[in-house]
């Protein structure tokens, strides 16, 4: 790459989002890389300023103002790189989701097999999947053709068939794409990239049908056999095509790509996915991450080393809040609100947020309602993620006698809340919640973690920049991630099973780092906090604990069996959640309100209204 890692002292990283461009300055101080400052400015990809680098320069100007040393040339038109004395930086990296990110359609022969694999490949590369076309998707061919024309994706991924298998179905899909004669969304007059990652024996047929009509690229089959999924070649090719075809037609991107050389610009969700995988690998943890934005919510998971990512394109907190309301339903939103609210009034409030997406709640009631919507957006996105993060379907499984009583189907979700070690939240509503307890509880209420789970948030949403930085300088990215990015909120301890509220649920003995022993008993239906914070260096404290659930409840060691474990502290501390798994709120309004108020008080969630 031509970068001398040893010489790097100062790094500038930007993320060009659809509304805001965020810049962070990372510098080596006292032998370790730390975040120095951040700045932001509106993204500039729309008229009157159709040049993404203008927004980048504005964000960097803010950074240089705060840090008190120049990073740009004197006329402010370019970044100084490499550093010249006190001016400039040694390395510049960037991610982008401006202009709606990478929007793809995927096509596969069988929806639940190659269609799903292709979806996973596209999502893993950082794309939004607009639709999945499959031979068996229930639509008539002309409907599929119309759909392709209507959606105008940035790229199409075509897959299907195992190597050596039948070729006619995938050729039929190519014929449908050819008949639709799709045009690219950005840059009229350039050919739409279509990536073929299916049966290698069908390559000539695909070329015959598509060459000359689209920018056809071929790569390895993403499902070479029924038992094997090979997503990496397709993912890399998608990112390559994204830079070559899509980005280079977006306003100002050729200049941005030049600025970042020799490091490639990455799609934002792709970079976040990379950093999640790195954390999981380095720490040996099963990780679930979520980034809730204004328009979309991305969910990432790494379980047993298998990475999955989904983008819920229409679940978000501003542009898409009305869609969250429509999909979750009034009742599901209201179940988290500890006071009565008129339905008409609530509908108007939600729609007003949608049409004025930058407004923020200035009263506690409004904050509570917005956080209720966030819980449902997170829950719906997580449901979508669980449905997609599954094992391969259509695979013959070998079973032993021990499996007789535990027969699982192929294609079961890989996401296990019981096996989950760390939950990472990101995005404005979680990262900028006025009290950290609010962020923790939004994640606990929507994901319902089981047994013992660390809860963390990204302090200022810098995971995208760290993801792309990790490609070049992993040590710097990890150092900033640990010291400045990740905020440990604490650990959620939640037994599975349900008992009547009020009955004894847990007996807990916690040996604190100073040797002090705390013994607590929790009844069913409680939320309680035991403070456990940080050491003098700012690292989270750990405590030894013995957690004994009552009969009928499980902490991972069997019904009523005690668990001995280490618990990680954080800003909120240890959160004991005995509300039951599965969790359900009382249907009766006054009892529901009473419990919500009780839990909010126990967590010290909100200031008085």
């Amino acid at each position, binding site marked *: 790459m031509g970068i001398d890692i040893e010489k790097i002292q100062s790094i500038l990283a930007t993320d060009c989002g*659809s509304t*805001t461009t965020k810049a962070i300055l990372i510098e080596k101080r006292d032998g370790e890389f730390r975040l120095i400052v951040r*700045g*932001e400015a509106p*993204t500039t990809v*729309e008229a009157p300023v159709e040049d993404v680098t203008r927004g980048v320069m*504005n*964000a960097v100007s*803010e950074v240089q*103002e705060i840090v008190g040393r120049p990073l740009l040339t004197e006329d402010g038109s370019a970044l100084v790189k490499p550093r010249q004395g006190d001016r400039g930086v040694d390395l510049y990296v960037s991610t982008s989701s401006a*202009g*709606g990110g990478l929007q793809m359609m995927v096509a596969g022969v069988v929806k639940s097999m190659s269609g799903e694999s292709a979806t996973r490949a596209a999502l893993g590369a950082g794309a939004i999947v607009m639709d999945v076309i499959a031979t068996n998707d229930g639509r008539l*061919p*002309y409907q599929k*053709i119309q759909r392709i024309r209507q959606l105008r994706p940035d790229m199409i991924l075509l897959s299907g068939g195992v190597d050596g298998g039948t*070729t*006619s*179905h995938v*050729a*039929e899909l190519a*014929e*449908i794409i*050819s*008949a*639709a004669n799709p045009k690219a969304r950005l840059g009229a007059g350039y050919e739409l990239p279509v990536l073929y990652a299916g049966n290698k024996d069908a390559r000539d047929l695909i070329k015959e049908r598509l060459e000359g009509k689209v920018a056809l690229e071929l790569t390895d089959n993403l499902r070479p056999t029924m038992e094997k999924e090979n997503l990496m070649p397709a993912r890399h090719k998608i990112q390559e095509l994204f830079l070559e075809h899509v980005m280079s037609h977006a306003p100002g991107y050729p200049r941005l790509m030049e600025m970042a050389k020799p490091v490639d610009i990455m799609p934002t969700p792709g970079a976040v996915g990379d950093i999640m995988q790195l954390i999981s690998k380095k720490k040996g943890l099963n990780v679930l991450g979520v980034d809730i934005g204004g*328009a979309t919510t991305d969910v990432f998971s790494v379980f047993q080393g298998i990475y999955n990512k989904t983008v819920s394109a*229409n679940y978000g907190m501003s*542009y*898409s809040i*009305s*869609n969250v*309301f*429509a*999909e979750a339903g009034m009742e599901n939103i209201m179940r988290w609100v500890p006071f009565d609210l008129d*339905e*008409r*009034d609530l*509908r*108007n*409030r*939600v*729609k*007003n*947020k*949608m*049409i*004025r*997406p*930058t*407004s*923020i*709640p*200035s*009263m*506690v009631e*409004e*904050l509570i309602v917005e956080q209720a919507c966030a819980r449902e957006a997170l829950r719906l996105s997580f449901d979508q993620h669980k449905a997609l993060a599954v094992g391969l379907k259509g695979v013959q499984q070998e079973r032993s006698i021990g499996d007789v009583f535990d027969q699982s189907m192929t294609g079961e979700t890989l996401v296990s809340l019981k096996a989950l070690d760390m939950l990472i939240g990101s995005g404005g509503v979680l990262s900028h919640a*006025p*009290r950290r307890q609010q962020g923790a509880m939004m994640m606990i209420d929507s994901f319902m973690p089981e047994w013992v789970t660390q809860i963390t948030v990204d302090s200022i949403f810098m995971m995208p920049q760290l993801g792309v930085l990790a490609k070049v300088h992993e040590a710097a990215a990890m150092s900033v991630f640990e010291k400045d990015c990740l905020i440990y909120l604490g650990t959620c301890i939640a037994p599975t099973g349900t008992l009547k509220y009020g009955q004894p649920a847990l007996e807990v003995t916690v040996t604190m780092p100073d040797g002090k022993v705390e013994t607590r008993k929790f009844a069913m239906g409680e939320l309680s906090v035991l403070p456990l914070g940080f050491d003098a260096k700012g690292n989270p404290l750990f405590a030894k604990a013995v957690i004994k659930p009552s009969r009928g409840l499980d902490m991972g060691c069997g019904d009523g069996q005690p668990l001995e474990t280490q618990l990680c502290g954080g800003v909120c501390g240890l959160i004991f959640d005995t509300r039951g798994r599965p969790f359900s709120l009382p249907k009766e309004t006054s009892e529901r309100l009473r419990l919500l108020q009780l839990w909010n008080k126990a967590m010290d969630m909100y*200031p008085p209204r």
Partner: protein
Amino acid sequence: MASVYSPGLKVVAKTNVHKERRLPMLGDVHVKKGDVVKAEQVVASTYLPGNVTPLNLANQLGCDPKEINDFLKKKTGDNVEKGEMIAETPGILGFFKTRINAPIGGLVETISTVTGQVIFREPPIPVEVLSYVDGEIEEVYPGEGVRVLTTASYIQGIFGIGPEVIGPLEIVAKNAAEVLDAPAIISAHIGKIIVGGSLVTAEALRKAVDCKVKGIVVGGIDAQDLKEFLGYDLGVAITGTEDKGITVVITEGFGKIEMAQKTFDLLVSCKGRKTSINGATQIRAGVIRPEVVIPLPGEKVGKEEVLKLGMAVGGMVRIIREPRFGEVAKIVSLPEKPQMIPTEAKVRVVEIQLLKSGEKFVLPRANVEIIEE
């Protein structure tokens, strides 16, 4: 420094409005630079390729895909009528023949001997682009479309539904606070664009459709009423294609919100004028807001002033979120440092004084929009 505020919607008595009128694909432009055009005039037209219908002939004939050419009576590029026989098997001794007819009229686009599929394409679909506003052709994009210039009163709405419509403007509400209810809509409003005050009720919407009113411009609409009128809950704000027989432009927001006095007064001053409105709204990157364009024939605008998009003490703002949603206020001060608001969030704020009551308030800057003077 980066700023956090909403620049506000445009409400101007006289401005140059430039309208790009482009075809979805290359075609013919029927006007030239400098031509004076009417809103209803076709300025460009083209033909979209017809829809395609695939037919798996091999399956229908029960033969191998490689064999379909043996039975086909048509070749690539041939025209077919709907129901015309396109393939036939020889049968057994001339009996039991299988005949396949064309599913649509059009032409045979492709024949695949790998999949056995034949693709038919329907005749091209004509597409016409209207001028949409009375004005003058400012620019011609050969084969693509035109840019029309008109000097007009211009009002940007916050949200709308329905496509472009053109009609004379009629003021129905007596003032900016009046609710537009069903009895106020009469048969004389047929073909007109009517103006309400703070709210249009569900009954009024239905009555307007019955009376063939072309469009409504009003301060607010109840989200529940909109849901009932559309027949579905609007998830994502991408509108403009609704086929409900009316176009609605909302100037303030959801709920009963008094129309900004400046907007109402401007509409009143344009009573009876030919007006073009469009409900299309897209609240995403590349936001599109609905609009009201009222051309002012014979008027000209000199050099247009560049609007200053910044907050300044003494400037006017509108509150765009509870509390006091919709009220107009004057900026008293702009504290530099972020302040804690009742939710405990630390944000940049603005101190304002309400015009009506004189009360002073501190609000997040994100919750006010600038009223452009």
